[in-house]
């Protein structure tokens, strides 16, 4: 098998340039979709028969939670690729995912608390899903803390990669917690096998938000990854050519 594409793809200057070109193609559609999804969810979708207009928090809560899990999965996969193939750019991608994922874990937790207060009567319960999402935040913070504690970037890459890979076990726990255990948290309405259990006028804005948040994550990750590549390649000749422009 011809592996040249793999090495070309993994070459830092190639990826640096590619990421710069791709960013607007993710960022602008993300902005449009998120604004459209918010309008659809807050203004157009009909109120829920049980939760009234309170259910509209789903349009910011579920996409944030989705982004928090997606970022971790990407981070762990990139870290594993970086470890196995000793690929610098993969470590750069992994390091870029962590702050984004951590922020949207905070968003998922806080919007969930704001939703919990009127519906469950409390901001917080030590429910399996809520606890696992909190553990996700601690994994992100541990990863970020470990990186900043190690001076040498390559050692930081390797040590934090191990943490990222071990922690990925928490992702299916968050995802399936509402099915494995008796949970106060409602069961999934979209991300499940078979037909979604919410009606199309409610579902469409939510799907738009999911796509928008996915594109937003990729755009943010690309911008951060370019910086991380520059930090790792500071000795290289191509960097001096790129920043001199």
């Amino acid at each position, binding site marked *: 098998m011809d592996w040249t594409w793999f090495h070309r793809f993994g070459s830092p200057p190639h990826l640096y340039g590619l990421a710069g070109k791709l960013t607007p193609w993710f960022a602008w559609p993300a902005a449009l979709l998120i604004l459209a999804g918010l309008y659809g969810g807050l203004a157009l979708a009909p*109120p829920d028969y049980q939760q009234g207009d309170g259910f509209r928090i789903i349009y910011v809560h579920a996409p944030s939670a989705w982004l928090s899990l997606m970022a971790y999965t990407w981070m762990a996969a990139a870290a594993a690729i970086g470890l196995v193939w000793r690929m610098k750019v993969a470590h750069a991608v992994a390091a870029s995912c962590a702050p984004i994922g951590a922020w949207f874990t905070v968003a998922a937790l806080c919007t969930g608390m*704001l939703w919990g207060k009127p519906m469950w009567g409390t901001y917080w319960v030590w429910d399996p899903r809520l606890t696992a999402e909190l553990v996700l935040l601690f994994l992100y913070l541990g990863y970020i803390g470990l990186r900043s504690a190690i001076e040498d970037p390559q050692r930081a890459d390797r040590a934090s990669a191990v943490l990222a890979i071990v922690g990925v076990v928490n992702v299916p726990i968050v995802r399936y917690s509402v099915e494995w255990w008796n949970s106060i948290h409602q069961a999934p309405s979209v991300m499940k096998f078979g037909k979604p259990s919410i009606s199309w006028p409610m579902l469409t804005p939510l799907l738009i938000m999911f796509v928008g948040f996915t594109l937003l994550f990729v755009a943010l990750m690309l911008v951060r990854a*370019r910086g991380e590549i520059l930090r790792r390649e500071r000795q290289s000749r191509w960097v*001096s050519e*790129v920043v*001199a422009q």
Partner: protein
Amino acid sequence: MSGFLSMGGYASSVWPAVALTFGIIVWNVVAARRSFAAARAEARRRVSMEQAP
């Protein structure tokens, strides 16, 4: 319009949740750009130091 703003009595939950998420999105855009700009400035400084006699 007032019905939209009152969110059927859930305004005190819905609007803070929307505002918080929106704020986190905006902050992430700013932070990502800053992180890249800092790395670029750092690299530029290093290059100019190497080129200095």
